[in-house]
């Protein structure tokens, strides 16, 4: 038969258990808004009972542990999808910038500059003729050249900004890798006595999730509680040791370009999806495509206008090219024409009324150009715009869809690991009641002691 002390012990264990539950509830409430925090739950178990001849009498309750309500599968899935979202978003952001550089439906500055250039030639070609119209041709040509140069410089700036972002992401990535390694060591130390370091694990998982947005990583958990981080086939974090990423400039056909490699390796890293990969792709694919297409438009314009203009003559010149260069970066108005507008040739003879060259140049806007199938220079430009618009629209769609996937997983994650104040409130009432009840038992045992003592 259990003694009063035994009952007191059981009640005390209930008091302690209720306190542990209340403390965990308080911890959960305190971290309800902490990013990466995983709600914790106290697991209780009945103490081993006293076995008496007439049966087993319980000895109270014990706190078995405090567990994190985490789902590793869901977490990994969320990281993979977040990596993709970060990649699509990075490309979408760059395409947004490219589109801003090219203008908008109401402000298609390069298209307008080309239209105005050809319109100026048309005015020059339309009788009654006026020498002053040559000023307009030169002015619109200079405007067009300036716009090509401005777009080229904006694309240069954009590439430079992308590379700055890449550099920042690498710094950020290296910092996160270092933090994960440090967390590994802390967790290893904290869990050496067999108790899980829940909050440290939360922090490490949060760091790895941040890492995943920069580049998709594989994570392997060791028995000692540490996690190895593997990226692009290379183990970057192994327990407390870290290998960092670094950027370097390598020579390519189009000049020096930033490339990413790991310390101790000279080969460029083949990046997995993530913001870093998105930035690299947008620089190497999207921006390069736009630049190549605009170069082709500028080249065609230069060639077609020059082919006609060299056939023309004025009182003081013949065989002059109108433009020089072969890309939007190098296109320039012939310096002789810039300084002397009268050298703009309108016809194949120097007669004032010979408008054949001006008329043919003006009509280039309607003419299929060499090597461009049935398309005109304008068609080539519009085709480039459509390509940018399609890619932007496509990536907007991908980002929106991927955002939905990530939101859905985040919601699921929040549902599983997030803190519910209602639930914690209910737990609080439950633990409070439990504590009150246990205290009442203690009080009753005290009274029983008093009764007993008074009998003596």
């Amino acid at each position, binding site marked *: 038969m259990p003694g009063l002390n035994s009952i007191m012990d059981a009640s005390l264990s209930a008091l302690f258990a209720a306190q542990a539950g209340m403390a965990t509830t308080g911890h959960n409430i305190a971290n309800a808004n902490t990013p990466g925090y995983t709600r914790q739950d106290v697991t209780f178990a009945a103490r081993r009972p006293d076995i008496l001849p007439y049966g087993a009498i319980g000895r109270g309750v014990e706190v078995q542990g405090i567990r994190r309500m985490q789902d590793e599968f869901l977490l990994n899935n969320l990281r993979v999808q977040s990596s993709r979202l970060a990649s699509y978003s990075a490309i979408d952001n760059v395409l947004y910038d490219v589109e801003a550089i090219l203008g908008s439906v109401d402000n298609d500055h390069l298209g307008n500059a080309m239209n105005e250039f050809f319109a100026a030639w048309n005015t020059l*070609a*339309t009788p009654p003729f006026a020498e002053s119209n040559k000023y307009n041709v030169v002015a619109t040509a200079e405007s067009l050249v300036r716009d090509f140069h401005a777009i080229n410089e904006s694309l240069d700036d954009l590439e430079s900004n992308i590379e700055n972002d890449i550099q920042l992401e690498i710094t950020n990535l290296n910092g996160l890798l270092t933090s994960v390694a440090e967390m590994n060591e802390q967790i290893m130390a904290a869990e050496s006595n067999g108790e899980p370091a829940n909050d440290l694990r939360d922090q490490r998982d949060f760091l790895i999730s941040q890492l995943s947005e920069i580049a998709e990583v594989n994570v392997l958990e060791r028995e000692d509680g540490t996690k190895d981080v593997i990226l692009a086939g290379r183990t970057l974090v192994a327990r407390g040791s870290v290998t960092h990423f670094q950027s370097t400039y390598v020579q390519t056909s189009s000049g020096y370009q930033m490339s990413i490699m790991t310390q101790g390796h000279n080969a460029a890293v083949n990046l997995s999806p993530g913001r870093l990969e998105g930035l690299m792709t947008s620089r190497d694919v999207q921006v390069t495509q736009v630049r190549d297409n605009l170069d082709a438009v500028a080249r065609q314009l230069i060639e077609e206008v020059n082919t006609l203009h060299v056939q023309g003559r004025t009182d003081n010149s013949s065989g002059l090219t109108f433009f020089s260069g072969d890309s939007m970066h190098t296109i320039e108005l012939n310096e002789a024409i810039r300084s002397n507008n009268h050298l703009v040739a309108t016809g194949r003879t120097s007669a004032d009324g010979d408008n054949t060259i001006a008329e043919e140049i003006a009509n280039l806007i309607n003419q299929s150009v060499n090597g461009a199938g049935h398309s005109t220079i304008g068609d080539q430009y519009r085709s480039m715009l459509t390509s940018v618009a399609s890619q*932007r629209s496509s990536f907007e769609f991908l980002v929106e869809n991927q955002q939905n996937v990530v939101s859905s997983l985040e919601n699921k994650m929040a549902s599983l690991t997030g803190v519910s104040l209602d639930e914690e409130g209910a737990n609080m009432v439950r633990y409070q009641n439990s504590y009150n009840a246990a205290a009442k038992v203690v009080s009753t045992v005290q009274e029983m002691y008093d009764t007993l003592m008074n009998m003596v």
Partner: protein
Amino acid sequence: MTIRVTDSYLSSILVNDLNRSLGRMLEQQRMAGSMRRIHSFADDPRAISTIQRYNSLISSNEEYLTNVTRSRLIVDGTDVALQNISEVLADARVLALRESSAIATGQSMTTSAIEVDNQINRLMDVLNTTIEGNYIFSGHSLGEPAFVRSGGMVVYQGDDNEIFTRTGPNSTMAVNIPGHVFQGTSSSLLTGGVDLAPQLDLTTPLSSISLGTGWQPGMIAVSDGAGTTFEIDVSSATTINDVITMVNTATGGTITAGLNSQGNGLAFTGLAPVSVTEVGDGNTAASLGINNTSSGNVLSGNDIRPNAELTTSLADIASINGGLPLGAIDVTWQGTTTTVDLSSAATLGDLQTIFNGSIPGMQLEIRDSTLVMIGDTPDQFQVESADATNTASLLGVAGTGSPSRLFGMLEDLKAHLHSGDKNAIRGVMTELKNIEDTVFQMMMKNGGRQRDLDWSEEILRQRDERLRSNLSLEQDADVAAVASELSRAETSYQASLVVTSQLYQSNLMQYLR
């Protein structure tokens, strides 16, 4: 599975919903503010190329309209000048007639000579007309006066080049008349007086009708006396027969289409009165020469014959069909008479080949559906029928060919007036008539250009309207739909805000004491 609703879950859902509602509302507000469906290129990539292309086409179209307006300055200026020239020549003819008559005296001739000198000066002023500093009769040498006095004579210092301007994506037209046509110092000319335009037949291409002006594809409305109206789309027709077949098919025999009795236009037969009108703003019926109402049961269309060409068969020309085969003509030039046998000719091209091969130095040309004989010196020549077939008259070339020297002729007239040679004054009349014919032809040619400009302007304005309408369909917002969507988005956003604020306000903690 029951969802565990945590605070972060609730927050995530509500914030996402709020953002979505706000995004939708902003999008609708942007559309309502600008009345545009599309702003950035990515809003509708499919439409972006179309919109930019329409913008470019509208811009080009505006340029063509400007070209038409500016070209009109030249063409109208030329018209005024030609009318002035015509008036001066009429005065000169009256003067020559008067001074070659019995009433002329030495004093009157001297006065008339002064008057002719004034006429020369007037003509120089007219032919040196400038539009915005351009000498419009100087060919390509626009910066130089067309005619100047040199060595006591008026000489032409321009060239024989025409100036072309673009009036559409695929069409250009000449707008000036080079002054060399009035110089006439290198040739003599005989312009035929017979219209050689061939009769219309079923295979005549619509693109060649109305002396090559062509037609405007579209719809026509045909009605009869019973009040039945048929709107017929003939835009896919390519020949006269296509139009006739389409009308006969569409009206099911109520109206019978065919060629008119003169063979130079269309005819629609039905219950009187038969009427053909345009559909909408079209110009199809007019371009087919049939936009009219009959007094009887036959609506006979206007003359829409094509231009005479080298391939035109002589049998297809109404004025000479009854005189085939042709006979011979005598051409007397530089003291030699040559008989040219034209009996083997079956086409206008055959006539040209035979004539050009018979008299070196002379050419036969077809200009504006008439024959023109040209000698490559200023010597006069005579053409007459060589046999009873009366071929020269049939072809309209019986007569005298002479140079068309505008100023040379007036200088000759002035000299003859000074010398008092009435026969010589009378002799100038032939060349004077030739020049008047030349000016008349130039007026016809210029009038045709004015009509072409009118036509081009009409087509360009219609094209502008169509392009802007298509552009609007692609890029403008549907106002009613946007207003409705905006209202819905605002309501949705406000509802989201209310729900969010209330949800955040209520949790269990409020009820615990």
